[in-house]
């Protein structure tokens, strides 16, 4: 009988420990930061902080919203096939795809141009994703769960003088949190007769982080941009509680077991972007952006858990209870800050005689425009060599991208853009410091192939 009671308690502890493990790993940032937002930005490698001209300014540089000539609505879709391998074998990391949309509504206040913009990315597999991994389990930390976060940005921008635009706003990330509770009596002799009530309480939550940007037009040839994106953490708390009686052959043993798990469900490192757009020829833009990313603030994706067991044993039962599980203390991932260079180029072919835009200060536009775009990004891995217990798999990433489209009409003007992107993740070899490491040495590499399209109606 004591052994049965002990077994029941052990099972309960295991069940709740398993629940604690259900704490998600960090969803690092979001799809816009990894794959771009909108086809124009994705086609130019994200190097558009100084030349962005549509709803995607809500992510790339909110200041540029003030220069959008009229009310515009955009909707699009993107998808990325991820083939991420370890030791040459595909690890089946989830592909990324989702819907993007945005609105830009410009106007004037006291003759000062201003604009309001909304930009969003919605992963189409759900609003949040949870994944349970122990600390040492290999995982593509930056690409596995990243696309699973809803992104929404709301910004305001003004143009106080024709040469300067300033904007800023808030971005939102969404995830879930919840608690789990079990009460009742567990019957050891007849488990299926146990009277247990469980409650699950889950909420969709969000966090906000600021973003600000500025853009300066230095004559006809050069535009400069400076953008700041704040750090965001979606903290996740799971509290599990088992309270009730264990019925061991007629002897009821009151049991209360509590377990708490705290982790960060999603993390966006703060970033600073410096962008320069050159316009050496008519309808030609060459842009170089450099993004500083504070990866060193990346938190451990392993949940911090604590548990306690309180059993009111009848006298003389002679049961030897196991000690409480020690709180987990995950190792810091020790990621390193990185500068990310981005290069983008756009040339727009004009078909038909350009006509002056009716709005003041806007350059004349041809009836039909066909843009051609290309980009390149190099992202050095922020993950240090995984020589010890953790196995945050990552490699450098080279991305080349291309895009084209067509824009026609005047008011409304319809623009259809598409893009293709290819990311190469070269082989990175991990050699363990300990010969007795359970995971051992491995190599990692990968390919990502993505594409998408965006339709914009401008009035």
């Amino acid at each position: 009988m004591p052994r049965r009671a002990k077994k029941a308690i052990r099972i309960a502890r295991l069940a709740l420990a398993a629940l604690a493990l259900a704490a998600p790993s960090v969803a690092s940032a979001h799809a816009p930061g990894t794959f771009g937002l909108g086809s124009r930005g994705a086609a130019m490698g994200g190097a558009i902080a100084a030349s962005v001209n549509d709803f995607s300014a809500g992510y790339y540089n909110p200041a540029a919203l003030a220069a959008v000539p009229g009310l515009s609505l955009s909707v699009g879709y993107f998808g990325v096939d991820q083939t991420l391998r370890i030791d040459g074998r595909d690890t089946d990391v989830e592909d990324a795809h989702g819907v993007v949309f945005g609105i830009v509504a410009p106007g004037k206040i006291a003759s000062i141009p201003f604009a309001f913009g909304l930009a969003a990315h919605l992963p189409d597999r759900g609003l949040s994703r949870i994944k349970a991994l122990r600390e040492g389990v290999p995982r593509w930390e930056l690409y596995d769960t990243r696309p699973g976060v809803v992104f929404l940005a709301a910004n305001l921008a003004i143009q106080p003088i024709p040469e300067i635009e300033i904007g800023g706003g808030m971005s939102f990330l969404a995830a879930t949190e919840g608690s789990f509770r079990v009460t009742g009596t567990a019957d050891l002799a007849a488990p299926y007769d146990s009277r247990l009530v469980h409650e699950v309480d889950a909420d969709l939550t969000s966090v906000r982080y600021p973003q600000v940007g500025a853009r300066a037009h230095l004559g006809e040839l050069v535009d400069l941009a400076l953008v700041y994106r704040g750090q965001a953490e979606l903290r996740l708390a799971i509290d599990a509680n088992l309270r009730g009686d264990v019925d061991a052959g007629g002897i009821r043993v009151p049991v209360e077991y509590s377990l708490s798990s705290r982790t960060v469900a999603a993390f966006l490192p703060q970033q600073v972007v410096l962008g320069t757009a050159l316009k050496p020829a008519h309808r030609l833009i060459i842009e170089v952006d450099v993004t500083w990313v504070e990866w060193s603030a990346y938190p451990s994706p392993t949940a911090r858990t604590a548990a306690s067991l309180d059993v009111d044993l009848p006298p003389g039962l002679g049961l030897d209870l196991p000690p409480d599980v020690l709180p987990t203390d995950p190792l810091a991932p020790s990621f390193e800050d990185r500068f990310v260079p981005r290069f983008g180029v756009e040339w727009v072919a004009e078909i038909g005689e350009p006509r002056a835009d009716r709005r003041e200060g806007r350059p004349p536009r041809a009836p039909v425009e066909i843009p051609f775009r290309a980009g390149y990004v190099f992202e050095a891995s922020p993950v240090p060599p995984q020589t010890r217990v953790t196995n945050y798999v990552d490699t450098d990433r080279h991305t080349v991208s291309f895009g084209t489209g067509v824009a026609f009409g005047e008011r409304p003007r319809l623009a259809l853009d598409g893009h293709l992107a290819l990311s190469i993740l070269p082989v990175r070899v991990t050699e363990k410091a300990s010969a007795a490491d359970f995971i051992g040495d491995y190599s990692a590499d990968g390919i990502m192939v993505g594409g998408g399209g965006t339709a914009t109606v401008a009035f």
Partner: protein
Amino acid sequence: LKARSAHRFPVAIAVAAACAACVACSTIGDGGDGGEELPNAELGPFRELRDDELGASHSSPIALRDGVRQARDVSIFDADGDPSTPATFAYAAIVVLKEKKAKPEAPTDRIARYASDDGRTFEKDGLEVLAPTQPWESETISGPCAVRAGGEIRLYYASGGSIGLATSSDGAVFASRSEPVVRPFREGSTLSDPHVVEMPGGGQRMFVTVTDDAGAPSTIVSVASADGATWTKPESVLMNGMELRGASLRSPSALVATSPTGRDILHLYVEVRVGDEPPAIQLLSRFLDEPGWDVANAPVFAPRLGASSPEVRRITGADGRPAAMLFVSGPSSRTDDDWGISAAIAPGTAVLSPPIDRGAFGQAGGAPE
């Protein structure tokens, strides 16, 4: 113009929203979890074999239990020399049970061979292959280690505090040498639990347990040989850290593996005893080009009632993926009344082919108990 725009604005919104909804709804698909084909060194931790992974005449996790004798210190041997087939012999030290429940520490006095057709479900009626006959041997014989060398099978064993060698052409009839091949390194100590492993580049290395009469914790020492008969250059197994300081180490089981990046690693599974705690199986490893042994950050196998005398064999799972089988001596994890050789596997996700059971009568496909 204003009127025209005003008319088209809601239409555009409606079209955009409809497109978004259609796209979103039509593209929900299967998602990978990023957990496929993850790297694993197949070193542990091990999980006990389940009932459906052993023959019907066996109760999980016991893979070998003699019907009338107690078997310990198992050495797993490829029966046909073909690693692609599961046919296996297990050489084990045995003692005839004089009582229904013999003491686990009762000295063993024979070595017997047990056959298995699936590499894990062993027959219950082993063939006795060796008993003490040489003047230097004591009545106790233990710690068999069988290796194939050319056309013969060599069986190393412990007796009288030294390590002996017996050879056989068929694995059933062994002739022991008149002198031990390894004697105690100093007076007052005894050697036991030999385990021999082929080293990359040629030569062999034998690991043995060294026990002092003074009562100090037992340690592991290795000796080297070019021919398997003459052993020299004893080296103590010294660990890099302090993890096992003060613990008693014994019953080594060694294997050499090459990492996916080409590093040769020597792994040593040992039985670890700390104080009065039940013994557990721990892993020590070292890169062949570096000194010092690393200790795994957790025991690879630590059942509630303890485990002794590890033996590890690399296998290929039914899904074609590599795995490792661990055999240990000790009580079943389910009850301390049931002694035998337990089997476990790593990684825990390994898939085994259906078991082949020789049954209670020692014939493949025989009736279960």
